[in-house]
């Protein structure tokens, strides 16, 4: 009974603060890793922070970030979209076909302008997304299987378009009135490559949709408890279809950007991109079980993957070791995610005691 003894409530408060700190670090792990990587690479490779390198890095990040933004919505509903890499490849090929071959309508050759080509390519991508959505929500096919199927179908279709060949010279001809496609991937606006602006725009849209619109909330609801969501009157099938559509549109945009950067459409473009996108989403703290995660997390995840890949290249680490390191980072991230859930569940009563907003998302 000495006065120097801290009271029970003081001890509890101290403990709660400590738990909160640990939880915060665990939750912000992707950001922590990102900062650590940036510090590490800038120390080991002095040219890492050169303007030229950062610009290249940003372009690389933009590719996986755009895919990850669309993928986040799918994963939030508890699904997965394996077809994004193939869709990127297919849309690039479709654009390449229209730009180089044109369209033959009733025997007459037409050369659609670039914007029409882009719109048609995106429409093809959306069609694949629609098929994914219908398979998952109406036919009841497991998302993994449905999108694995469309992964193969879209890749096959991409190869069929040109019989496996590359469409070169997408720059177009002034005479045919279809020039300007390369602007999509090669223009600089205010010092930043256009793809990076595209990514930022999509990121803004993604954040707004996920946090501010009824649709965004429905996505979380479906992933949190699908049955309850249906009973609450949320149109679950429509929500799922829209997430797959969104993911495909993002994939189509990536396909167009790559084709524009290379001024050529290659049917193998985008192979294994889906894995990078999923890795980015998971690194960003989105649960593969659905219902938990954020678009901004996925962006950070994409940054981690991009920085890691480019940094290791600059350090001259062999490609084989790069893969080992990337895999390790992903597995560790998910292990930490599980740890975070456990810490949170265990200390929840403590956290709820003070500050009613303690419940964490």
């Amino acid at each position: 009974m000495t006065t120097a003894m801290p009271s029970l409530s003081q001890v509890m408060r101290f403990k709660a603060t400590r738990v909160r700190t640990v939880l915060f670090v665990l939750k912000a792990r992707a950001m922590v890793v990102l900062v650590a990587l940036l510090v590490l690479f800038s120390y080991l490779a002095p040219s890492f922070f050169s303007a030229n390198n950062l610009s290249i890095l940003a372009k690389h990040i933009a590719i996986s970030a755009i895919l990850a933004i669309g993928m986040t919505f799918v994963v939030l509903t508890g699904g997965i979209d394996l077809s994004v890499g193939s869709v990127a490849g297919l849309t690039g090929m479709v654009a390449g076909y229209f730009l180089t071959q044109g369209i033959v309508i009733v025997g007459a050759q037409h050369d659609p302008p670039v914007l029409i080509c882009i719109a048609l390519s995106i429409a093809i991508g959306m069609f694949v997304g629609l098929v994914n959505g219908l398979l998952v929500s109406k036919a009841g096919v497991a998302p993994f299987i449905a999108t694995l199927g469309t992964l193969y179908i879209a890749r096959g279709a991409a190869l069929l378009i040109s019989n496996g060949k590359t469409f070169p010279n997408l720059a177009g001809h002034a005479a045919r009135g279809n020039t300007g496609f390369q602007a999509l991937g090669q223009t600089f606006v205010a010092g930043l490559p256009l793809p990076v602006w595209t990514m930022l725009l999509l990121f803004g849209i993604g954040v707004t949709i996920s946090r501010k619109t009824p649709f965004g909330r429905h996505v979380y609801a479906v992933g949190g408890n699908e049955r309850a969501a249906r009973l609450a009157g949320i149109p679950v099938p429509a929500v799922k279809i829209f997430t797959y559509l969104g993911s495909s549109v993002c994939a189509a945009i990536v396909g167009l950007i790559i084709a524009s950067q290379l001024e050529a459409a290659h049917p193998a473009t985008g192979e294994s991109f889906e894995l990078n996108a999923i890795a980015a989403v998971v690194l960003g703290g989105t649960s593969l079980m659905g219902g938990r995660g954020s678009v901004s997390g996925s962006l950070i995840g994409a940054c981690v993957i991009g920085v890691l890949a480019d940094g290791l290249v600059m350090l001259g680490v062999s490609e084989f070791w790069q893969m080992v390191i990337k895999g390790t980072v992903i597995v560790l991230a998910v292990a930490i995610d599980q740890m975070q859930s456990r810490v949170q569940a265990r200390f929840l009563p403590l956290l709820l005691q003070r500050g009613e907003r303690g419940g964490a998302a």
Partner: protein
Amino acid sequence: MKHLREDIILDARAITRRYPGTIALNRVDFRVYRQQVNVLIGENGAGKSTLMRILAGAENPDEGELWLEGSPIVLRSPRDAAKHGIAIVHQELSVLPNLDLADNIFAGREEVQAKIIVDRKREEQRSMDALRRLRKPMNVHNQAGHLSLGARQVVELARTLDQKAKVLILDEPTSALSNAEAETLFSVIGELKSSGVTIVYISHRLNELLHLGNHFTVLRSGRIVGEAQRAAVTRQWIVERMSGRKDAERAMPHGEFGNGAVLLRIEGLTLAGTADEQMEKAPLRDVSFSVHHGEIVGIYGLLGAGRTELLECIAGRTRPTSGVMLQSDVLLHLKSPADGVKAGIYLVPEDRQRDGLIPELSIRENIALAAANGRFLDRKKETAASRQLVRELNIAATDLELPITALSGGNQQKALIARCLLGSPRVLLLDEPTRGVDVGAKAEIYRILRRLAAQGIGVLFTSSEIEETMELADRALVLCQGSIRAEFRRAEMTDEALFAAASPSAPNVLRSDSGGAFA
């Protein structure tokens, strides 16, 4: 008092609903009277919840029609029902655990500004208003997954309140509530009624129904078997119609048990509760008791009392925080259900679909699931052993190779018991042995359990039904908030004593005689 046609706000006519293997509702006519508490009573599996899901648009009837205020309506989804002013609070509370209270209250019907942006401010304001009207102010930023069951119910009520429902269906609203919470609910119901809302109330707690109800309808095995006004209703009237028996006396004579040797002894079993998003676990506090040879021990308790947790600890599925288990004076260390099975402890779980059956497999494969020993399966032996058990337990299966899902609930349950018997059980644990089982199969399952007890097996079951506990148990333990509050020998058991011991706080409004305080 006779009701006029115009008093009927919602009228379900000749509703039929079939499930594979059973008819859940058989040409049911259900009338809901305006501004009354319309009580629907029936045992588990009578079809109450199915009927309510149909009224709420969550399920479609195979035949029959719905009339609302004199005109026919078709409800294709919960959204349709909400548009017509019909709201439901489901028995399995359906909150979205990852969203906060305001999000939950407005899920599927978000308030928007500029057509697309969620108007959080207005949602929060209206959520707070609704919660205040329910006299349960809560922080609307809290995540729903962290709430107690009672608080989740309040959230669902707030949701229906904000929707301005004309007809509010409450499906077993108090099964998850403490007494204090139930009392709050009753006063809210009284308030809603006086503000013009029609209530449909489902429960099988007689005291509560007699206290609240104005109009009574009894459902048994998918048929309406009684309808009356409060004045004409007595406890006996309800029990007779629910059970289909003239008198509710014990169906079978019981021998005196409890003199046999102790089979299993539990001492000081304690489990820390968790509130994980997926798995909520009620805590257990210092639970001690024993099960004797040939004895049927019943554990009665309300939802959230820790019944399931207790059985899962004993079966080795959950590891208790502390406490010991002894089997014939030998300490048991169960690290998994497999260890439990090695010690002869078998569990028939509460949720058949989730924890018991493997729907893709046949009846034979389900029964013989855990019995395969050695390197290869012996189809012949399996078939012979399953066939014998199917005969012994009187499982209505024409072909053992049919999928298990072809069986009715009662027969599925018997198949799960058969699975346990194919091992060599010394203690059989059953969590809610007759949940979702029709009356006939219920009686049969009781007979089977008695026969097993007579063969020397110790039977330990849990139940949330007083009548089941009274009918089956040689000895009843009452579990409340994780500790054993009372123990009754067979001769000492009464409805009131069991119920009183199971209620977290002293019951005061739940006396059956209390008058029309909210009428």
